[in-house]
């Protein structure tokens, strides 16, 4: 017997237990008893349920997060991919400016620039260096963050940006402190039917923070954590 078959049979156990409970319940209630269920009770029950539906639909609701469809998520993923490609090719004119979060310039002393990361997930950030043919000490930086969407929820506004801090010749990227986000979602469709229809093929778009640095050629970069992207 294959593992799938065993898993299926084990999975059927709760169903069998459920059938047992329902059968017990069905036996307990005599459908043909002398006591007939008052039609009035049925009408009240039915009206109550419909009323709940109507009340829920008409009460004002504060919607905080919009849920995107699978097609929209694919679109976001495509945007992210093309942005990364353009950035790695240093095609400034093709970069989607909606991802630009901040830009700055910084003048360093000496010929070394070191990159540091303060946090648990250095892979959430990538540094792209563009070498400039200049003799000054000025470093130009642009911070971008691409679309972040989890389960169709747009989290761009919910997740804080990484914080960039200059300490002398050192650029420290600070990860924001850990937080927990919980969302409640009501679905009109049955969850089991959602699975059957396979209409949520893509569930996550994991955007990244990119730091685009324009650095004079004579400056050496110390990158012990391997933050640079090539």
């Amino acid at each position, binding site marked *: 017997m294959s593992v799938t078959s065993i898993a299926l049979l084990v999975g059927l156990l709760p169903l069998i237990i*459920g059938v047992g409970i329902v059968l017990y319940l069905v036996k307990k*209630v005599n459908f*043909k008893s002398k006591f007939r269920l008052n039609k009035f009770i049925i009408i009240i029950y039915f009206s109550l349920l419909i009323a709940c539906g109507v009340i829920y639909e008409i009460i004002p609701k504060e*919607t*905080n997060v919009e849920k995107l469809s699978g097609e929209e998520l694919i679109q976001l993923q495509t945007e992210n991919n093309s942005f990364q490609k353009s950035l790695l090719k240093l095609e400034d004119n093709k970069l989607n400016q909606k991802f630009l979060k901040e830009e700055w310039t910084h003048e360093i002393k000496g010929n070394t620039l070191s990159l540091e990361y303060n946090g648990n997930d250095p892979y959430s950030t990538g540094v792209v260096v563009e070498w400039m043919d200049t003799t000054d000490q000025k470093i130009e930086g642009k911070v971008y963050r691409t679309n972040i969407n989890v389960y169709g929820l747009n989290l761009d506004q919910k997740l804080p940006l990484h914080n960039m801090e200059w300490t002398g010749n050192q650029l420290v990227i600070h990860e924001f402190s850990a937080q927990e*986000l*919980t969302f409640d979602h009501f679905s009109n469709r049955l969850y*089991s039917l959602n699975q059957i229809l*396979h209409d949520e093929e893509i569930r996550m778009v994991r955007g990244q923070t990119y730091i685009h640095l324009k650095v004079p050629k004579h400056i050496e970069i110390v990158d012990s954590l391997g933050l640079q992207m090539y």
Partner: protein
Amino acid sequence: MFLSNSSLFSVVKAQVKFKINAYNGLIYSLIILQVLGILLGGNAGSSGTSINSTTISLNTSTNDVSFILVSLLAISVGNLLTTKAYRYDDFSFVATRLSSNIANFIVLFIFSCFAGVTTYFSGYVMRLILHFKSTSEFVDSSSIFNNPSSFLLTIVAIITMLWLFSSIGYIAGILFQMHKLFFFGAVVIVVMLLMTGTWIRISESIFVENGSLLILIMKVIIITILLLATSTAISNRLGVRT
């Protein structure tokens, strides 16, 4: 020669009327199960992940628990209608096996409609409770007013699924009434199919490979009609009242 001739339609109509009134006690079970579903089914699905040191949880509330419990009830009711005690009710009428079967299918369909609509709307009771109780942020969800087609299709899907489950219960009951060996034989065949993976492939082609809910509904209706037609054919071989 008879003083009056009854048509199949009038006999079925009389039987349906009688059965609806006689078996309306099952609404008790339905209400109990739906209340149980509301109490247990706060979260049908909970997804969690972590991104950029942030833990994200999404609790999706649907009325799946109610649906599953009511589906089990549908199987039981389908089965129950084939038991001797319930079949003997048909002898109060001048009826044929065919008219009794058609009446049973219609009764199952009517109860499926009632159960389907109430199961769908029972979810709203849970929503109202959560709406006032929960402190989490709410995700925008489509409403009846902005997506009426999805609302209608879901209700129709629930109704047809419940009708399918009741017809499965019905055919199982008919097999059991014919001979216990037939029933256990059918169970053995289903278990064998499960082991060989054939069942998985059949289920996938029926329930999984669907482009839309409408296709799923059509497939379910066709299967249900096939099951009911088979039950009618089998039940013609059942003996008379003993």
